[in-house]
């Protein structure tokens, strides 16, 4: 599914990722953990195609297809979805309009017929109920006046509607209380499937109690310095990053 090889990424003059390699096979959930400044968000933004993140060397492919040469919207149409750490507020664009525009833009890019209004509304309503979201909220400007938890639920709702193949969750637990965390994690777990891969990027192990990963990678200094199973996350939580990063160095 996702294959990253020797990825080097710079922002301006500063190199942030320095030879990162990572494979996430179809159907697996991989966590990327690391101390602040390790390059976690750079990895997620680079995969989604944020302007200003310059790939100097390396490759990233999804099912063998190069992602890095594609515009952000073309990556999305091929199944990449980044759940933002800080979802943007878009005043004047109702969430429901935004969702429908995104769903149909992706369908159009893939040469599929547009989703009609009745089917779309039915699907959105069902997804909103699952996430315990008030449907009226979707008539407001996207994320405008939403609480931190509501914004994260909105991200998961978008994810459910867009049904991506590769989910990248960037610090999805930040700003969530326990109840919101549980609802969001349930939403993510409901999407686990043999055809779908997930990259869960997090500083803390807490989220991984709810979204249990198949593999855990430690990102430090712009590279993966250690990999293991879910127990590695618990070891990191107990002992901190310093020892593992030092041992890997």
């Amino acid at each position, binding site marked *: 599914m996702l294959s990253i090889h020797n990825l080097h990424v710079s922002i301006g003059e500063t190199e942030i990722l320095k030879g990162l390699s990572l494979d996430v096979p179809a159907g697996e959930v991989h966590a990327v953990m690391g101390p602040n400044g390790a390059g976690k968000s750079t990895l997620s933004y680079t995969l*989604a*195609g*944020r*302007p200003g993140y310059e790939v100097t060397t390396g490759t990233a492919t999804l099912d063998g297809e190069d992602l890095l040469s594609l*515009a*952000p*919207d073309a*990556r*999305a*149409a091929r199944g990449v*979805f*980044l759940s*933002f750490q800080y*979802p*943007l507020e*878009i*005043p*004047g*664009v109702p969430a429901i309009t*935004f969702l429908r*525009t*995104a*769903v149909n*833009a*992706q369908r159009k*890019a893939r040469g599929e017929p547009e989703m009609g209004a009745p089917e779309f509304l039915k699907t959105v309503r069902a997804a909103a109920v699952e996430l315990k979201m008030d449907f009226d909220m979707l008539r407001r*400007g996207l994320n405008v006046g939403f609480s931190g938890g509501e914004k994260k639920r909105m991200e998961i709702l*978008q994810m459910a509607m*867009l049904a991506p193949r590769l989910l990248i969750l960037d610090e999805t637990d930040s700003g969530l209380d326990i109840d919101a965390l549980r609802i969001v994690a349930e939403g993510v777990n409901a999407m686990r499937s043999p055809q779908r891969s997930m990259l869960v990027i997090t500083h803390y192990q807490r989220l991984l109690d709810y979204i249990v990963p198949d593999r855990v990678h430690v990102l430090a200094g712009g590279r993966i310095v250690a990999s293991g199973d879910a127990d590695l996350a618990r070891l990191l939580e107990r002992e901190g990053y310093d020892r593992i990063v030092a041992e890997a160095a």
Partner: protein
Amino acid sequence: MNAPVKLDLRDVSTFPTRRDEAWRYSDFRRAAPAHIEVAGPVASPEPGGLFAAVHGDELAFANGRTADGQGRAELALEGGVQRLRFVTDANGGGWQAQVEVRVAEGARATLLETYEGQGAAYVASAHLSFVLEPGAILERIVLFVEPADAVSVSAADVVLGARASFSQTVVATGAKLQRHETNVIHPGQGAELRMDSVYLLGGARHADLTTAVVHAGADGKTSQLTKGLATESGRAVFQGRIVVERGADQTDARMRHDALLLSDRAEIDAKPELQINADDVSCAHGNTVGALDAMALFYIQSRGVPEAEAKALLTQAFVGEVLERIEHEGARAIVQAFVAERLEGLM
């Protein structure tokens, strides 16, 4: 205050230049030829136009002439919807027309005014005068669709009666020089004024939105909101002046202009002015010029929306705040669709 220029296309000495304070950013004499032939007569258009879906009466000028060949007309409005169309079909040449609009005491009317140009390089000049009798309510919506090399000026004088309400929304899409000017004598006395505009400019199109309001008496309200964008070599001019005369106490006047400058070659000139000569008034103005939020653009694109469509969505949302203030629902929907289509073409 300078005496307003009485533009007469037959007399080049009346053509304003940048030396005229009110025309500092729009050089009419440079844009228009010194000698303007009268545009030839053309058949009156089929009733309809941009606001065809809103039923109502229609007065149409074709190259400055009504169906019975007149260059001026009077409209006495007692209610309902009135379409007013200035249709041009000319290559070179020009026309001028005059309309006097009177809204009866206590009446509530809607005026849907369109400048629909075909052809090239013409000069158009419309002058409107509005009299709102006490308690009259008028909503005026103005749409411009003109060729890129046309020169077009529409100027209006508005006199409000006590407790009257005049609401205006202008959507300018520019031309070689396109100017919409509104001068209002506000008596206070509970009268209310809303003057909004939107401009959407690409290519080398120029639009000038100029307003002047004089609050002559106490207890008057004015609210102005203009939003627009200029891309490519588009050029926008916003001039808004509010004068509160001595004794016009309890005046409540607000003016905002927010713009998006979307290219290095585009230009936006804004001149908001408040002159306050009364005490106990509540007046404010604000003016911003910015760019699209790059992070918001990336966020929308990351959901699969192509860049041009994402920009159209953001710019539509930006100007949407102005269009939401249109009261007539049917007209509002038409203007919203018109703006959305125009933005998709520009992004």
